[in-house]
């Protein structure tokens, strides 16, 4: 007897081969989608949002593309997830990880087709991933002790990362920007202290790194436009009417005169507060919250520069840069740490006025001003720069470096191939497949550059058969070249993360033999 209904309405169940097919197909579709963006000659995608305004994003960043997709296929979601994690964790390699996982699944599909159990494939993949990782570890270079070399490593990594992005034309310029910015962080991975300001206009080449700090705000009317040797108080306090915070308090009056009195008292209170703030001996006051007209006027009278409504990150950064602390009460001026800087002035970038703090005490933070023809270009430039900054900051902590241009993949593939030859049993098929999947990455890079991938990869493999070869794909000349001479490097941490999470994800999808989809929750459509 057949059970008619085990699940709720609309819940579906897919089993065995069908489930596996569905997840393979979904995952490969996603991988193919981002495949063409891989490498220095990869193409961009236009994404149009479904929200109001149909805003358009042009990007080449795997994580950004995948984040914006509406996907229904569960396996595809797994891939999107790994790309997101890659973005959060190392910031770069978001496309590679998806492409590798997709290739691993494509190979796995063939193996499953030839009647090899998924579990066997998984154990083969695991062995291969482990072996590949060791092969990379054998070949890493670590120049941490040599500051000069380390810096050139960083430059190379930044250039390699940027070369696949919109900034590739000015990659040297931007690589320098990124390296300078990251070196200022002195080993911290907190990218918050690098501020990126986007201003449309000019060309990408006009972008610059500013050692000081730029706040995208205007100076209040009648207040000084230029302050030298500024003492800055960074605050987070209400500068409108201070509420009475004792619960249940309310004002009850019975005559107009009393209203005026209370109002007077309120004003008095504000005046007192402002006096206290002025009493700190400052000539610049930055507040996170609004500053009403009345206190602003008082500040102007005292010749103090008052900046209102700086956003939270801005405040934190400013506090970090100037060495002050964020204050909310002002009763004991002697113990509040004030921030200092040499010069505050209003600067103009094209039409916009900004406030520029220069000569700051702590050199950790800095600002990168991006210029570009349109918002889309700027957005993409920001994303690319963010990738580069992420990779660099991670590399500063883990200074192991590899060559780029498909070199690591070939090194891994070679090691994995050797392992396959030594392994008895069905697993060796899976290990072999793993090496094929690895080779797919240089193949894709070559394909995207419009080169003869089959020829190039074959040459590359032959080159790598020699000991200690540095051969990789030189996309510019369209031939096999020496990567260390060309100066193409990648961070070990990125490659390792790509390898491990791609293997993990494909393993996860391979293990599935049944997909149960619950009925989608009904939403009240307000159409």
């Amino acid at each position, binding site marked *: 007897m057949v059970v008619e209904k085990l699940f709720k309405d609309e819940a579906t169940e897919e089993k065995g081969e069908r489930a596996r097919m569905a997840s393979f197909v979904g995952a490969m579709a996603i991988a193919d989608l981002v495949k063409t963006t891989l490498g220095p000659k990869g193409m961009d995608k236009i994404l149009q949002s479904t929200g109001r305004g149909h805003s358009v994003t042009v990007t080449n960043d795997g994580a950004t593309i995948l984040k914006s997709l509406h996907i229904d296929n569960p396996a595809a979601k797994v891939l999107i997830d790994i790309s997101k994690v890659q973005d959060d*964790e190392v910031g770069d390699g978001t496309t590679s990880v998806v492409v590798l996982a997709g290739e691993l699944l494509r190979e796995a599909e063939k193996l499953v087709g030839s009647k090899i159990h998924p579990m066997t494939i998984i154990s083969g993949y695991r062995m291969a991933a482990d072996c590949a990782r060791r092969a990379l570890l054998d070949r890493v270079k670590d120049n941490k002790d040599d500051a000069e070399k380390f810096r050139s490593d960083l430059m190379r990594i930044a250039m390699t990362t940027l070369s696949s992005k919109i900034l590739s034309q000015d990659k040297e310029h931007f690589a320098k920007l990124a390296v300078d910015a990251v070196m200022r962080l002195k080993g911290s991975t907190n990218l918050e202290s690098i501020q990126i300001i986007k201003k449309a206009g000019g060309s990408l080449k006009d972008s610059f790194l500013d050692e000081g700090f730029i706040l995208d705000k205007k100076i209040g009317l009648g207040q000084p436009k230029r302050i030298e040797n500024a003492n800055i108080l960074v605050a987070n306090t209400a500068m409108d009417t201070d509420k009475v915070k004792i619960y249940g308090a309310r*004002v009850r009056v019975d005559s107009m005169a*009393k209203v005026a009195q209370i109002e007077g*008292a309120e004003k008095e*209170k504000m005046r007192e507060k402002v006096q206290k703030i002025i009493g700190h001996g400052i000539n610049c006051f930055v507040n996170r919250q609004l500053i009403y007209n009345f206190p602003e006027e008082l500040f102007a009278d005292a010749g103090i520069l008052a900046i209102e409504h700086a956003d939270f990150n801005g405040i934190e950064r400013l506090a970090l840069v100037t060495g002050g602390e*964020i204050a909310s009460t002002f009763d004991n001026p002697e113990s509040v740490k004030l921030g200092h800087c040499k010069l505050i002035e209003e600067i103009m970038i094209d039409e916009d006025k900004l406030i520029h703090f220069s000569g700051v005490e702590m050199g950790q933070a800095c600002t990168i001003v991006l210029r570009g023809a349109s918002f889309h270009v700027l957005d993409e430039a920001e994303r690319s720069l963010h990738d580069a900054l992420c990779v660099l900051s991670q590399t500063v902590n883990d200074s192991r470096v590899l060559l780029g241009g498909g070199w690591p993949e070939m090194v891994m593939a070679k090691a994995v191939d050797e392992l396959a030859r030594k392994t008895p049993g069905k697993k060796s098929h899976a290990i072999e497949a793993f090496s094929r999947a690895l080779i797919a990455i240089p193949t894709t890079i070559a394909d995207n550059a419009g080169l003869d991938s089959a020829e190039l990869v074959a040459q590359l493999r032959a080159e790598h058969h020699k000991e200690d070869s540095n051969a990789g794909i030189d996309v510019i000349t369209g031939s096999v070249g020496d990567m260390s001479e060309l100066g193409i490097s990648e961070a070990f941490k990125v490659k390792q993360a790509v390898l491990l999470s791609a293997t*993990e*994800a494909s393993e*996860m999808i391979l293990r599935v033999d049944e997909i149960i989809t619950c*009925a989608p929750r009904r939403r009240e459509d307000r159409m």
Partner: protein
Amino acid sequence: MALAFDEYGRPFIILREQESKSRLRGLDAQKANIAAGVAVSRILRTSLGPKGMDKMLQSPDGDITITNDGATILEQMDVDNQIGKLMVELSRSQDYEIGDGTTGVVVLAGALLQQSEKLLERGIHPIRVAEGFEISSRIAVDHLEKIAHKFDFSATNIEPLVQTCMTTLSSKIVNRCKRSLAEIAVKSVMAVADLERKDVNLDLIKVEGKVGGKLEDTELIYGIVVDKDMSHPQMPKQIEDAKIAILTCPFEPPKPKTKHKVDIDTVEKFQTLRKQEQKYFDDMVQRCKDVGATLVICQWGFDDEANHLLMHRNLPAVRWVGGVELELIAIATGGRIVPRFQELTTEKLGKAGLVREKAFGTTKDRMLYIEHCANSKAVTVFIRGGNKMMIEETKRSIHDALCVARNLIRNNSIVYGGGAAEISCSIAVETAADKYPGVEQYAIRAFADALDSVPMALAENSGLQPIETLSAVKAQQIKESNHCCGIDCNDTGTNNMREQNVFETLIGKQQQILLATQVVKMILKIDDVISPADY
């Protein structure tokens, strides 16, 4: 149908709106129920064992769960059928009671149902079948007791515990690093276990996960990890020898429970109120400072002013810490949770050797580590993994392993895994069957057959010939009277489970058999299913 007539010949209604209700009776009802139960168990069957496959579940909101854990699969499956729901319950109660073997219990129940269908077709009364199952379950449980091994472990020798946890973990996706995870699970259980009373409070073990890194980075922290950061960005990120004030009151002016109003009608009142308010904030911070606290952990938020005052007085603080975490911190640091500032005293402060904030990855993720606590009886398992699903699945796996370790501390008897225990029980039940006169004999034999289905599923999932393998192992068990023989899932060349170190807990196995039998009995007793029409 349910229609009766009174003495005047008028119909009166027993079942309301019966035409819109579907109804099944008698053998049909039983068969429908059995079919539903079997269908559920068939879904789980392929997940059994070290080579079992995973299921991918998509929730109504589109979130994906990939798991191998029986209880989780069933819970998220959106089952509509009544009998299906019973099976879900079954797996859940095994989860609550034992924590492991949630797949096995459903597979066993499914097998029992399949067997009972055959018996019903032969015309045996369902109650007789149920009784037969009951008798045999008792035989099986007694037999398990007989073949169980006690094994010794102590605080220094945790190897046997680790081995057992590894058996549990080997069927999960985390089996890549089962050794290290099993060690983490055992160490954390040993850290919180009360070996005298043989009890473990699993609440003291916090399992926290953070996406990123790799599974191998998973670590055991003797202390607490809280997913929070310091309330003020400029507070120190590391505090040594911290004295922690644990507060459940906000750094805000008090809110009396009784409704009241403070009316301001003159300027003086306005000003006094203001002074009061300032003093209030000052007092709160001063009090924390006075008792010698060097860190304040608060369940609620702070006002900006209080935040600055704390920062100003060099008193780092953490806000919005959840109630459960707060309790754990209190336990770990030996502090007391203080509901009012007035009650804050030096004795009530918790102590920790090191409190530090740690940042992850490129995003603004920070976590607070509280380590070297005064009372180390609270630990955190901190899981790292490639993606969210991986973390979730690892959490579930660790939970299973923790449960197994706890069960072993409670009762250190084990049976052999890999289907060995089931095969052994099946043989025992089969032999016992002949002693029972009457119809029950058939039911008992059927029970023995049902027990075989667990090792059979194991063999099937491992790509072995199920019937051949099972009969070979069974023959071996009888011939050598060695109840350690099971299915060699990992192709290691031996089917002696003792050599392979595949153990399961005795209570887990017993519970599986008892629970499965109970549910099957319940299902068999149903002979009428009335379900309302779809609406």
